[in-house]
């Protein structure tokens, strides 16, 4: 029963044998076996407290004779199982060889019914006004194990409602089932221990320590992990019911961590961003600052027309005009660390077709928080390295470009999404040259540009980013962009094909990947469709000597990453 080569052990769940790694939490073991053990307080990324009792199960182990150590065999010739007389909680039980559990016996079901009845004794009838409705564990398990009517004739407890715990989180204490997930999250993950219970028994109440606020940059994760509607997001509160929301897998563009997200939208409008579990990158968390990035997509500053000298045109006209300007030579290209891998590749192609004098990227930096926001606020600098757009790390200032304009060396600038006036090139200087600007929002560079291509934001297009670990991750369009604006890959592709002569421009990332497969050795075996949802590690060892600015963060250690890279290289 023990010691298999692959180091897996057998566990028996409802009399069926399954192989799991030793020490697996039994809630997870059951999940691997396709069985659900209902639970509230257990969370795979937090410590185990075992206080909700919803995960009760029957536990048994193979019996041995005490004196001889021989297994006791029953009449069927099998080892006898000693079932514990009382149920045990699954979340605090770890798999050991030969463990037997029952997840669906009469006793177990009775336990769950009992736990549910107690949880509902003081629970308010709030579902119609509760934001959690539709994704509430209490609702779900009440449907499975609830009694359907209440035997409680006394008055329910009254507790504080509509309490602001901090700038972004609202607490309704009546709905809290005292699972302590939020408390453990603040203590263990956010390292900002501000929540706790006061009072006892059915009067226990979740609250912030006096004089403290729940205001760290990870506070909204407590809303996600709260199994009920006790903690809700002030921003999302009463905006939309969750059953209307469509989830699109995406990548957070806040920093080079590349947090995996779900964009939740209804009829082309984004309502919220939630984390998507990826155990290699962000576990189940996302910083609050990344959740609000979508708010800028629906503003009056959005560029929605292709223009030449300020007058509207169509994409083909703009591409033709841009190509004419670029063919005149003396071109400088300013790429972006926010563009996708595909766009950077096409931009690189354009740069080499017009023999650009310089290709630069603008760096964006900030303080890393050691968790899920890194110092590099460009999500895709490594993509620019891999596609060959740049060979060294970017700078925040384009002083070199400014002097090249001054000296007349540069006559045309193609900027992809970067406002050059923000990085050391004065507006008066830009007026001296022809500017071709690709951007999603108006800014001073767009104002002086001769040709403007409106672009889409990360929420509106498909593509890939390469994060600090050299992990290639893809994002898909969640909402349609402004009417008439084509994906950036299409406009870049059109420009590219005019400059190249004949090639048929790509219409989506698939087409660009087909090209990159042959051009970029690290990408040879990848096609866009099949990039796994958790991303794939790319061999970036070639660039590991560069002085990347990221420090330690969750699942990333700059020193260790070199070793990981070495292993990826070896395995190829």
């Amino acid at each position: 029963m023990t010691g298999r080569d692959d180091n897996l052990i057998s566990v028996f769940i409802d009399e069926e044998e399954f192989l799991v790694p030793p020490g697996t939490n039994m809630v997870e073991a059951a999940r691997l076996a396709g069985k659900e053990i209902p639970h509230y307080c257990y969370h795979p990324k937090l410590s185990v407290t075992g206080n909700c009792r919803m995960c009760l199960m029957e536990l048994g182990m193979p019996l041995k004779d005490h004196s001889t150590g021989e297994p006791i065999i029953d009449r069927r010739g099998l080892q006898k199982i000693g079932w514990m007389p009382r149920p045990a909680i699954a979340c605090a039980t770890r798999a050991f060889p030969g463990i037997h559990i029952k997840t669906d016996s009469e006793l177990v079901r009775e336990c769950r019914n009992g736990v549910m009845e107690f949880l509902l004794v003081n629970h308010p009838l709030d579902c119609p006004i509760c934001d959690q409705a539709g994704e509430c564990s209490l609702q779900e398990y009440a449907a499975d194990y609830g009694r359907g009517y209440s035997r409680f004739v006394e008055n329910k407890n009254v507790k504080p409602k509509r309490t602001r715990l901090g700038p972004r989180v609202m607490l309704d204490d009546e709905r809290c089932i005292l699972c302590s997930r939020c408390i453990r999250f603040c203590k263990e993950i956010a390292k900002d221990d501000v929540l706790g219970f006061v009072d006892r028994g059915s009067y226990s109440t979740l609250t912030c320590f006096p004089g403290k606020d729940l205001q760290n940059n990870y506070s909204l994760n407590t809303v996600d992990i709260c199994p009920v509607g006790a903690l809700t997001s002030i921003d999302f509160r009463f905006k939309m019911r969750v059953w209307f929301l469509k989830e699109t897998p995406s990548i957070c563009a806040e920093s080079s961590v590349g947090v995996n997200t779900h964009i939740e939208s209804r009829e082309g409008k984004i309502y919220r961003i939630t984390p998507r579990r990826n155990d290699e990158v962000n576990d189940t968390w996302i910083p609050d600052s990344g959740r609000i990035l979508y708010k800028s997509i629906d503003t009056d500053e959005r560029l929605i027309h292709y223009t030449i000298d300020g007058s509207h045109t169509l994409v083909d006209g703009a591409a033709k005009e841009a190509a004419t300007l670029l063919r005149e030579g003396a071109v400088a290209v300013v790429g972006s660390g926010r563009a996708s891998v595909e766009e950077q590749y096409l931009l690189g192609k354009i740069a080499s077709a017009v023999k650009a004098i310089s290709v630069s990227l603008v760096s964006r930096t900030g303080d890393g928080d050691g968790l899920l926001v890194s110092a590099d606020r460009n999500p895709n600098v490594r993509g620019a390295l891999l596609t060959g757009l740049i060979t060294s790390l970017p700078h925040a200032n384009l002083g070199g470009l400014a002097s090249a304009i001054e000296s007349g060396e540069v006559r045309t600038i193609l900027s992809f999404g970067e406002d050059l006036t923000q990085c050391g090139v004065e507006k008066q200087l830009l007026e001296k040259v022809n500017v071709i600007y690709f951007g999603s929002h108006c800014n001073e560079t767009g104002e002086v540009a001769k040709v403007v291509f409106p672009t889409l934001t990360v929420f509106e297009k498909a593509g890939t980013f390469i994060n600090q670990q050299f992990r290639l991750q893809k994002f898909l369009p969640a909402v349609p962009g402004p009417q008439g604006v084509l994906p950036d890959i299409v406009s870049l592709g059109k420009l590219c094909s005019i400059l190249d002569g004949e090639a048929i421009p790509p219409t989506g990332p698939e087409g660009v990947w087909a090209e990159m497969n042959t051009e970029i050795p690290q990408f040879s075996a990848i096609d866009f469709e099949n990039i796994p949802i958790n991303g794939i590690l790319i061999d970036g060892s070639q660039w590991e000597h560069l002085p990347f600015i990221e420090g330690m963060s969750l699942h990333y250690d700059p020193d260790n990453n070199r070793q990981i890279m070495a292993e990826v290289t070896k395995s190829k």
Partner: protein
Amino acid sequence: MAFKILERKPLNWAERTYLPQIITGLKITLWNLFQKKVTLEYPDVRPVIPEGYRGIPTLVKDPKGREKCVSCQLCEFVCPPKAIRIQPGEIPEDADYAHVEKAPKQFDIDMLRCIYCGFCQEVCPEEAIFLQNDFSLSGYSREEMVFPKAKLYEMGGTFPDQHNKWGKKQQAAEEAKAHG
């Protein structure tokens, strides 16, 4: 299958005059002339609407004038032709019914889409929407036929609140406050 050809019987003399038929018909007419009238002079006279009739959906208030709908959007979800559009909103903390927390900011029903199925009434957890007696609607434009919240309340009127859930809740909170 074989089929049988029936011989049509020749009409007799009386039948050929058609008089017996005409007389029977006139008899029936004459008899009905002295019966109670069943024809309704619609639209001057309106029919009596039976219990359980499903006319157009309307929103109702409770006897105290509180709007019962809490914008849970379940009716919007269940509505088969997607006639209902709701924009939920928050009740300000200093309002009379602050403890209800949520009420619709906007509530539109497109009466051109509504098929009078009654699902919305069935699903509503707050007993806030009812299909009432109105059945005939007309308008000059499509926009006019999208009834906004104010109009739906005007047509709905007041309904008794059998459960008084929110009243009880407010009372419990006040009692708890009184006891410290």
